């Protein structure tokens, strides 16, 4: 490669499935955008077509990594997928994120991104072995779930390969679908994009390396520095129970290792005991958070070990042996691994009680089915919708009599996890029923069904039930119809603003990795005040009016989020501005990303300089949103919240202790301040020409101006 940097592989691989052309272009032209989502957004911008759908052949899907991917620096095993998403209104651009080991394998094969355009005549998969790239028939695996598909692709490539594939949901163009890698790693929202291209999957095997400019000693010194700061998943820096080494604890912490927890399904059960923050060679036991999904009893029965992504010491994946998956559900495997939502969503849908056997089985059987079918839930949105509508007994008014009679409601009523076996099949195979299968279609395409079923309070058949008024549904951004993802329920206006500007649930944990850290409020508030300004962090459910500190905090979170998705490193752990080290006064180090980048690439940057590179992609994203929506007022057309956000807890006022209620006027003021912080028009929320040019995005300003969308 011509570039004299470490980190990047140097090439972007292109595959046109319509023409079968395969070519590469230098990564150099994308370096201003770092990598990952930055490359993804730039490629999509360059190929923008007005009114294009995510499922149109000429829509490009980009799988991209960054300069840190595969370098071995901590938590650098991520990959970003960017495309127009059928799971959003108007098929706007979104990016999803997948861990595991597929991202580093792209680097070792010599590519910073794979961009796919066109549509194959018949099912295919893309085979990448270093410089050798081919389009192969996938006819033999079309129709299979992701588990079997990934196995077949690996069998064809050899066991050193890393692969991913869509399941039946993606094949059948279900908007709420994604792809899966071995080990339970998924990216959601673009399964149907792959399905529309007849692209079943991708296999990669690379024999090269990620080049690194720094010395071994420099890399190890930084590694050790990070290990002295990093917490558990979501950078929880205290244990969940009182422990001999810790000054503080927090029951919600994802630092679950303690005497009562073991890897009980291991061939030799592993008693965890306390895992202190400075035990470098035991950090992999620290998280062990399966009890969050199946309870303590079943953790000790089923948890075999923890797993996760390349180069991550935290290990948030819970790898479980659940005999009932075979014996009761007749699945062919009794093993399931996932984390967080991957286990949680089933229990959002069923009327289960935490700690029970049904709860544990719902978590694991649900994960198995969704992963194999390749079903996406939009951070649980579809599952919340179902439960709220079922509880309100609305389906009998919306489904045909034939379909209503076909659904085994008694299984849900009796709290039997088998209900999911039936329901997810309806989602993944929308056309395979003698009736309309509106229930399955709604679960696979809630964005459309809000209109089809008139769930916006205008359908008298369901007593004008209003999805935007239902706090239990969690639909947060009314315009984008996406779920809340760490918004006002835990982080005041900071979370709210973060949940406003993306086109899907934001997948941003920059704030959570601080505010949920587990330290006492006074310490966290002090850290946030130092970093962002006074009053940046309110106690949860006790919110004050918007202030500049909160705006600064929210902007910082979005920048770091996009930075991580571009480098690529894990935003479920980074950034690390708090630490478990009392000697450091529990402070972390927000410049770690810049230190990583400087060592790996040899391009020495400050934290501020690197953040500017990430902000460039945020600015492009915002301009892109205006372009795709053909909107000259994103405050009006995009940044709109559901009514429940303001109207929850009718007996309380905004600012009262004990409520997450937001205030309409306060949020409008917050949006204006947020826009100004980004250099956007304070009324319309669209980037100004001056701002776009400041970030080298004059071409975006020209495009918006030509469409009459540029402010001023």
């Amino acid at each position, binding site marked *: 490669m011509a570039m004299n940097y470490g980190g990047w592989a140097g090439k972007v691989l292109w595959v046109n499935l319509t023409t079968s052309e395969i070519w590469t272009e230098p990564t150099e032209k994308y370096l201003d955008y770092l990598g990952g989502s930055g490359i993804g957004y730039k490629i999509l911008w360059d190929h923008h077509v007005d009114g294009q759908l995510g499922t149109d052949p000429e829509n490009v899907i980009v799988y991209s990594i960054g300069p840190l991917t*595969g*370098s*071995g620096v901590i938590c650098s095993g991520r990959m970003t997928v960017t495309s127009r998403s059928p799971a959003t209104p108007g098929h706007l651009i979104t990016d999803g994120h997948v861990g595991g*080991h597929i991202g580093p394998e792209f*680097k*070792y094969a010599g590519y910073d991104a794979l961009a796919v355009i066109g549509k194959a005549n018949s099912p295919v998969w893309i085979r990448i072995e270093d410089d050798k790239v081919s389009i192969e028939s996938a006819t033999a695996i079309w129709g299979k779930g992701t*588990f079997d598909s*990934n*196995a*077949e692709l*690996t*069998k064809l490539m*050899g*066991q*050193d390969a*890393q692969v991913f594939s869509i399941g039946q949901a993606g094949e059948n163009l279900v908007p709420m679908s994604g792809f899966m890698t*071995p*080990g339970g790693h998924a990216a959601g929202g673009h399964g149907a994009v792959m399905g529309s291209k007849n692209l079943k999957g991708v296999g990669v095997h*690379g*024999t*090269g*390396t*990620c*080049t*690194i400019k720094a*010395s*071994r000693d420099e*890399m*190890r010194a930084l*590694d050790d520095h990070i290990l002295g700061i990093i917490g558990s998943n979501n950078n929880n820096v205290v244990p969940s129970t009182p422990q001999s080494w810790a000054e503080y604890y927090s029951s919600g912490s994802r630092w679950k290792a303690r005497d009562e927890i073991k890897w009980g399904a*291991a*061939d*030799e059960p*592993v008693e965890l005991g306390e895992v202190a923050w400075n035990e*470098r*060679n*035991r*950090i*992999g*036991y620290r998280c062990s958070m399966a009890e969050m999904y199946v309870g303590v009893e079943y953790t000790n029965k089923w948890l*075999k*070990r*923890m*797993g*996760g*992504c*390349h*180069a*991550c*010491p935290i*290990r948030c994946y819970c*790898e479980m*042996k659940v005999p009932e998956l075979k014996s009761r559900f007749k699945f*062919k*495997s009794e*093993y399931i*691994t996932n984390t967080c939502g991957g286990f949680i969503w089933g229990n959002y849908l069923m009327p289960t009680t935490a700690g029970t056997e049904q709860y544990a089985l719902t978590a694991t059987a649900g994960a198995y089915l969704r992963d194999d079918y390749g079903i996406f839930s939009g951070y649980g949105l579809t599952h919340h919708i179902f439960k709220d509508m079922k509880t309100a007994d609305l389906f009998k008014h919306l489904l045909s009599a034939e379909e209503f009679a076909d659904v085994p409601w008694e299984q849900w009523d009796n709290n039997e996890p088998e209900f999911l076996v039936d329901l997810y099949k309806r989602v993944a195979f929308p056309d395979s029923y003698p009736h309309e299968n509106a229930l399955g279609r709604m679960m696979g395409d809630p964005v459309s069904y809000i209109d089809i079923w008139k769930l916006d309070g205008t359908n008298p058949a369901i007593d004008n039930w209003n999805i935007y008024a239902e706090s239990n549904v969690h639909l947060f951004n009314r315009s984008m119809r996406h779920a809340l993802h760490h918004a006002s329920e835990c982080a005041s206006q900071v979370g709210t603003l973060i949940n406003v500007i993306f086109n899907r649930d934001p997948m941003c944990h920059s704030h959570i990795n601080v505010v949920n850290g587990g330290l006492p409020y006074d310490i966290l508030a002090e850290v946030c005040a130092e970093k962002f300004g006074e009053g940046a962090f309110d106690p949860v459910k006790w919110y004050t009016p918007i202030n500049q500190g909160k705006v600064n905090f929210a902007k910082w979170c979005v920048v770091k989020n996009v930075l991580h998705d571009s480098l690529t490193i894990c935003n479920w752990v980074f950034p690390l501005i708090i630490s478990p080290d009392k000697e450091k006064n529990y402070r972390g180090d927000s410049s770690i990303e810049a230190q990583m980048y400087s060592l790996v690439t040899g391009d020495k940057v400050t934290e501020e300089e690197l953040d500017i590179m990430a902000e460039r992609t945020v600015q492009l994203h915002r301009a892109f949103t205006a372009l795709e929506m053909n909107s000259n007022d994103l405050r009006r057309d995009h940044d709109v919240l559901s009514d429940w956000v303001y109207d929850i807890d009718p007996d309380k006022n905004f600012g009262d202790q004990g409520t997450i209620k937001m205030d309409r006027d306060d949020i409008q003021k917050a949006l204006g301040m947020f826009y100004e912080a980004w250099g956007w028009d304070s009324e319309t929320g669209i980037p100004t020409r001056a701002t776009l040019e400041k970030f080298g995005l004059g071409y975006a300003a020209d495009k918006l101006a030509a469409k009459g969308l540029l402010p001023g």
Partner: protein
Amino acid sequence: MITRRGMLKGSMGVAVGTVYSGTLVSFLTGCGSDNNDNGNGEVVVMPGGLMVVNPILCVGCRRCEAACGWNHEGDCGPTIARVKVAHNMNYGPHGVQSNYYEQRGESGDFTLVPQTCHQCNVCMEVCPQKAISINEKTGAREVDESLCVGCGYCADKCPQQTIKVVRSKMKSVKCDLCQGEPNCAQVCTTGAIKFYTWEEAEEALEIYNNYTGLVG
């Protein structure tokens, strides 16, 4: 067949060329003890020891691979790493089987079986260049890159499949125990990979070898 006590006795104050065969030999080379009747699978036991992974504890983060690459080649990647996690990671030591979901690996029973150099003599014996020799201090079999021509005989014959020829320099690379300070073990997040003296090796290898066959 030797006993563990006999092996230990022999390993003390060892001289180059001390030859053993039997249980430890089969653990080291992956060959059954029956194969030793014709004199194959002999091993020279030296001071030092070897790296062994406990598959029950490995969590597949591959930090060992990264630290190995940083230390030896200055870069990162499974080809240059002397410890091999990725090869067996998703589908176990035998690759994709029809019942892959019952076999080892991330797609099976979650048992990971990383490969490490067992410091046997096979590579040294097959090298036509005599480029592999024993480091008297550590006991590691080390490649002299000034002699190696990258022919790949050692890689083909390595029982653990841990030697690779790196294309960029056309040299074989293998575990040298980091001159007594194995980087892989230093960064391991669970203590799954450890340096074992010959004294300890038999038990560790016995556990490891429980996971190298097909399940069922």
